[in-house]
């Protein structure tokens, strides 16, 4: 009977593993497994003859500095070689099998020691090896002994590895964690990287080593300090700008707003301008891309409760308005021909385009799918490999715009989009991000282009890469978003601007009308807590204050938690939020219901719906709650508070309050009695249905899409 040792560098899918083991056992082999495996996840029918289950992250885990430097295959080997059981199995196995790419090196190393074993990659290959072994004569005792010794080449390689490790050890010693964490150590390295008369290349190399040491010591601020100090001493402006950008990027990666973002952005833009003047547009695009990536990083705008862009829109984008490269990109190209009016002799051909996110399109699609005057095609740019590769291609897009619209990338985009543009009378692009930039990269011919901008796009770089002169109609979901967009993009205020519309999101609110039980009167609720901008901590504060007055009030949170892996800032917010609600959850005053497909059902028990966000486009969750008959309590979204348009102009008077204390007063007043609560809820519901239900809003869409815009 043969023995097979399977090695897993990453957790195998249970079904694949189960099938593999079954096939190997069918040949009469005993099957053993070592590596990344979760024993609880194994299929019930899995029949292993031996198992050494190790943590699932052995290919990624970097408990030591050596491991941090290793490639995944080495990490897997380092971990598995420590297991006596695995070594013993490897020594006696007839077939060694790598189940995945990260396990290959372990099998390769085992095979250096067990020289009679077959070493294979993949199950089919292992089955074949077992079959072939049956046809081979067995090795004699002496041969088995000789085969058990490591090969001479294996020994030589081991020695080489030891020698090569020595310089790394030296570097490790001078950048050890205690040194990098101490003030003296930081000062030492700051002095070192600023030593005069050192060539740029050497200075950069030393700085990179020191920065790595800081990273190892969990000091992203130290990394940024070292890199910024080094940048100040670099002679070449491009190298200096890149290193300043690198410093800022390390801080953002750690979830911190960079200490000197403005200088880094300016330096990158200056060099981008120089490159553009010299007609080196590949380099210019790269630098401009870096500047934009830094300035519009989500840590600054999305994962914070404030945003420098929202506080001072014009000031924030001023460096880009002064940059030659950035303004060249933003220069309107215009369209060669005006958009044709909707056809009168056949249905309108409507192409609806988005990239992955079709959350706000479903109702629109199903309505126009059934509309006799419209023929709909839908394209998800993320689902089509050819289109996806040209859509989120910021750098080639920038290079194309900088190179007078003449690059192979532009040709490719043209080639891939043209069949869609040729077919469509009207293209409706949802979200003013990469798809909008792509569709305005090419001349649309006579096709009318409509783009809808929701909200977060204004905090991204995409509005500076979209050619608004090729858009015929720009749709916003609220006035305050339109105001912000027109502030950021002055072209939208000019005489050649596209027609601007404010149209509510398509929502079927009739399905939300629900009879609520009397207990719902004391039940606050939020729908959607998955982003920092939703600021659920503000709502928890309202509940806390409320319960000081009346402990019958409780809160339901509908929707998944925010993803802590998106950014450090998100993780920190989530941790603080968890601390806030720990006791309230323990006492049952707060319940997190998680994600659901049935929001109307969840809203049954919610009597007061809260919008605690710092910014929103229109906040669909709140509107749905209002339609359900819950009393709306809306924070005056701070990003827009005090401006001509804000939550106060979007919602009726009486819904919007300025502080948690005001929220408490509003809630106590409206829920004072069952009658007052139900009356307020019914009024909110009637308002929501009258203003925002699809049966009303669809007429706006019909006018936009079907009427001749010239009339």
């Amino acid at each position, binding site marked *: 009977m043969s023995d097979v040792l399977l090695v897993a560098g990453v957790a195998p*899918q249970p*079904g*694949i593993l*189960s*099938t*593999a083991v079954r096939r190997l056992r069918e040949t009469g082999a005993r099957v053993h497994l070592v590596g990344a495996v979760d024993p609880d996840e194994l299929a019930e029918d899995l029949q292993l003859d031996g198992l050494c289950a190790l943590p699932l992250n052995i290919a990624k885990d970097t408990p030591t500095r050596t491991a941090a430097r290793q*490639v995944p*295959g*080495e990490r897997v080997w380092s971990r598995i070689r420590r297991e006596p059981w695995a070594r013993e199995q490897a020594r006696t196995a007839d077939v*060694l099998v*790598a189940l995945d*790419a990260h396990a*290959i*090196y372990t*099998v*390769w*190393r085992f*095979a250096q020691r067990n020289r009679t074993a*077959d*070493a*294979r*990659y*993949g*199950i*089919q*290959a292992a089955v*074949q090896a077992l079959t072939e072994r049956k046809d081979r004569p067995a090795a004699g005792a002496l041969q088995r002994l000789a085969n058990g010794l490591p090969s001479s080449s294996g020994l030589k*390689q081991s020695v080489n590895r030891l020698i090569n490790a020595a310089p790394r050890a030296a570097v490790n010693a001078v950048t050890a964690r205690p040194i990098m964490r101490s003030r003296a150590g930081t000062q030492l390295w700051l002095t070192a990287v600023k030593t005069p008369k050192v060539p740029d290349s050497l200075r950069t190399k030393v700085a990179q080593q020191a920065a790595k040491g800081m990273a190892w010591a969990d000091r992203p601020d130290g990394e940024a300090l070292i890199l910024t100090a080094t940048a100040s001493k670099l002679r070449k402006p491009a190298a200096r700008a890149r290193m300043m950008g690198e410093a800022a990027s390390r801080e953002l990666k750690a979830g911190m707003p960079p200490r000197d973002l403005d200088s880094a952005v300016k330096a990158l833009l200056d060099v981008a301008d120089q490159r553009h003047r010299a007609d080196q547009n590949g380099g210019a695009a790269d630098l401009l891309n870096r500047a934009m990536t830094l300035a519009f990083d989500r840590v600054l705008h999305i994962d914070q409760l404030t945003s420098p862009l929202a506080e001072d829109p014009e000031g924030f984008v001023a460096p880009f308005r002064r940059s030659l490269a950035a303004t060249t990109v933003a220069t309107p190209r215009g369209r060669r021909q005006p958009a044709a009016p909707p056809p009168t002799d056949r249905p309108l051909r409507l192409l609806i385009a988005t990239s992955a996110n079709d959350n706000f399109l479903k109702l629109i699609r199903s309505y126009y799918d059934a509309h006799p005057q419209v023929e709909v095609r839908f394209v998800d740019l993320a*689902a*089509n*490999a*050819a289109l996806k590769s040209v859509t989120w291609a910021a750098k080639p897009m920038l290079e194309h715009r900088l190179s007078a619209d003449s690059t*192979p990338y532009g040709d*490719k985009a043209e*080639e*891939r989009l043209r*069949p869609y543009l040729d077919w469509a009378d009207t293209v409706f692009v949802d979200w003013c991000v990469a798809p909008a930039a792509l569709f305005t990269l090419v001349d649309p011919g006579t096709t009318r282009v409509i783009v809808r901008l929701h909200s977060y796009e204004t905090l991204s770089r995409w509005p500076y890469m979209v050619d608004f002169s090729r858009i015929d109609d720009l749709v916003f979901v609220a006035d305050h978003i339109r105001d912000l967009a027109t502030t950021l993009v002055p072209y939208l205020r000019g005489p050649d601007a596209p027609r601007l519309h404010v149209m509510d999101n398509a929502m079927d609110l009739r399905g939300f009308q629900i009879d609520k039980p009397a207990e719902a009167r004391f039940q606050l609720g939020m729908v959607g807590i998955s982003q920092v901008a939703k600021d659920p901590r503000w709502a928890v504060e309202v509940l806390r204050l409320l319960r000081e007055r009346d402990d019958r009030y409780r809160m339901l949170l509908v929707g998944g938690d925010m993803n802590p892996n998106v950014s450090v800032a998100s993780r920190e917010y989530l941790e603080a939020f968890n601390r806030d609600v720990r006791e309230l959850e323990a006492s049952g005053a707060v319940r997190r219901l998680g994600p659901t497909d049935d929001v109307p059902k969840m809203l049954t028990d919610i009597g007061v719906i809260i919008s605690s966000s710092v910014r929103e486009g229109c906040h669909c969750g709140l509107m749905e709650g209002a339609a359900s008959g819950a009393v709306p309590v809306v924070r005056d979204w701070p990003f827009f508070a005090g401006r001509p348009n804000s939550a106060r102009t979007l919602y009726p008077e009486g819904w919007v309050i300025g502080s948690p204390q005001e929220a408490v007063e509003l809630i106590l007043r409206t829920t004072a009695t069952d009658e007052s609560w139900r009356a307020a809820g019914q009024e909110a519901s009637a308002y929501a249905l009258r203003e925002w239900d699809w049966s009303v809003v669809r007429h706006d869409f019909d006018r936009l899409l079907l009427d001749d815009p010239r009339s």
Partner: protein
Amino acid sequence: MTQSLDVSNSAAAGRSRRPHLIYLAIGFPPAAKSCAYRMRETANQFRRLDWDVTVVTIPPASWERDSGLDYSLLEQVDPEIKVVELPLAREDLETDIRKFSEERALRPAKWLTNLRKREKRIFPEPVFGSWRGTLEQAVLDIHREHPADLLLASCTPYVNLAAAWKLWETHGVPYAVDYRDGWSIDVVNGGQAFTPDSEAGVWERQILDHCQSLWVVNDPIADHYRTRYPHVANRVHVVRNGYDKDSVPMVRPHTPDPEAGLTFGYLGTVNYTTHQLGVVLDAWREARKQEPLLRNARFEIRGHIGAGANREANGLTELIREAAADGVSFGGPVRKAEVGQTYGGWDALVLILIGGRYVTSGKVYEYMATGLPIVSVHEVDHDASRVLDGHPLWTGAFGLDELRLVDSFRAAARMVVEATDEQRAGVRRHADPFTRETLMRHAVEQLAAHALAAPRDLPVNGAVVHPSSEPSTMDEIERSAGVRA
């Protein structure tokens, strides 16, 4: 370089009166590749015209690690065809770790990237470039032993073109190219695969300038070549894949029994994404819930999945396994000899294809010829849609729109129980013009006649070419059959 080259046993060796074809057909039986059928028929047709045929391919062991083997495919290969197996194999599909260098074992992805770069330095094809030298030497050796009148290069791999060019350049042997899907066109995603001034572009231009004839499998690809190279437009011929008559059941073996459970089938290489298969399986689940006729239905998937280390062990097999409770199963590859029987056990077919208007697939013809209802899972603007247009038991193409796929499964179930024998016979008649034998016979006859009519003393370096100027072989057939294509 060509140690395995041995022409001493060739029945045709030395008989100079019979014309000789060197056929570069990497994928020839027993390789279990979809192109094997086309290659087999092409070689057989040349034999039918009394040509000596030397097929150049790679050994079975090399296919073992690739798409696998099907020895039943050899049963219908003309025994007079000589097969030369070159000692070539895809290095990237090697599964014996003892043959790996330490660098490859440690950084497999980087090793692969470097391999691709090395291959491209030899010939602008990332997977097969390094085969160039062996192929070139092989055709020179074969020609020295048994002078050739024509070389036909079937691509992929495109490195075959280098060998065709070598023989033309050194001995003036005319050549034709069976591109099948085309090189400069990205048939899956649409658009051009490389620019005319790239290295591959220069190669393609050079090859097409001097080739006798260029075969492709459908009109959109032919249009691409006629547009890109107007000067060779009249040498571009559409030679559709077609189907083998023995692959489809001639009579319906059983009456559909919804009570016992209808059986839907997929037969072909499982080369699509997990996303695409996931949508199919989700739609299948939903259709089973909604449609009483599908309550006990089964969905059998047969064919090859994955290559190299991932063979039959990847995300696709996992998805299928997870759908076992919904009557979905994977039964592995089907030997060519058992294809007809397999179709005979099914009530309806599921046609899952990648790509768009430039992709036809050979499978669509075979599916059509079975006379069974067909559920399409591919782009609306797919060449298969053009082939199936007018097929009365076809549910239509709706891309990956899950809701519409649910409707398609339900509609197919109703077709299974409602279709009359007359309708099924009509469908089969619809497929009649597409038998592989018919299609390839026309194409080969034209090419052979032209090759023999052309002057034998073609100057070296190809200053003179006498290309075929007949109309596209399929056009007439399709017109007579009234099929839109």
